[in-house]
């Protein structure tokens, strides 16, 4: 089973870094999970967000998403992936490495 990296994205400043790290980790055979929360959910509205689709399991904090007045579909994020903070806790417990942006 491949090593797993969790990425918590809690700011709206580093989408380029998140994409670059995800791409590199994927190329090295790692499994990646990303949880967007707080102002980080604003990144779901950027065009480049779609670059993450298919490379990582993507989840979004539903409370943050609605608090920011956002709605509608997000590429690569299914209904069940609009989640609570418990998803982040699962990520903490399940991932071999955990990084924060």
């Amino acid at each position: 089973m491949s090593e797993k990296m969790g990425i918590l994205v809690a700011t709206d400043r580093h989408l380029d870094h998140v994409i670059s790290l995800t791409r590199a980790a994927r190329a090295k055979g790692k499994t990646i999970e990303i949880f967007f929360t707080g102002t980080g959910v604003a990144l779901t509205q950027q065009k480049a967000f779609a670059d993450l689709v298919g490379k990582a399991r993507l989840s979004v904090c539903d409370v943050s998403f609605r608090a920011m007045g956002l709605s509608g579909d997000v590429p690569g994020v299914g209904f069940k992936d609009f989640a609570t903070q418990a998803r982040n806790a699962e990520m903490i417990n399940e991932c071999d490495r955990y990084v924060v942006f």
Partner: protein
Amino acid sequence: MKKVCVVIRDIAQQYEGLRTSLGALLDAVEIQMFVLNHEIAEMDEAFQDNMEFLDEMEGERFSNNSANVEKYGFRHVTLKQTAEYLKAADVIIPF
């Protein structure tokens, strides 16, 4: 059980850091939350309630800001002591 330190320095992220701390506690993670350098900017009902919930769930909260210690019951910690807690943690989440 993993030990997680949530380190909140950005004033605008104080509530988000608390939310993340609580969420992690619910999935059997041990939480130590640190509010560094600044007093809690908005101690409204939601923050107060969530902070009390954190206490009930046996999460720990620390601050190097004396107002947080005196007004809100945070345990005082220095930066040096904070670094020692971080060293002992499995996961560190800066906000």
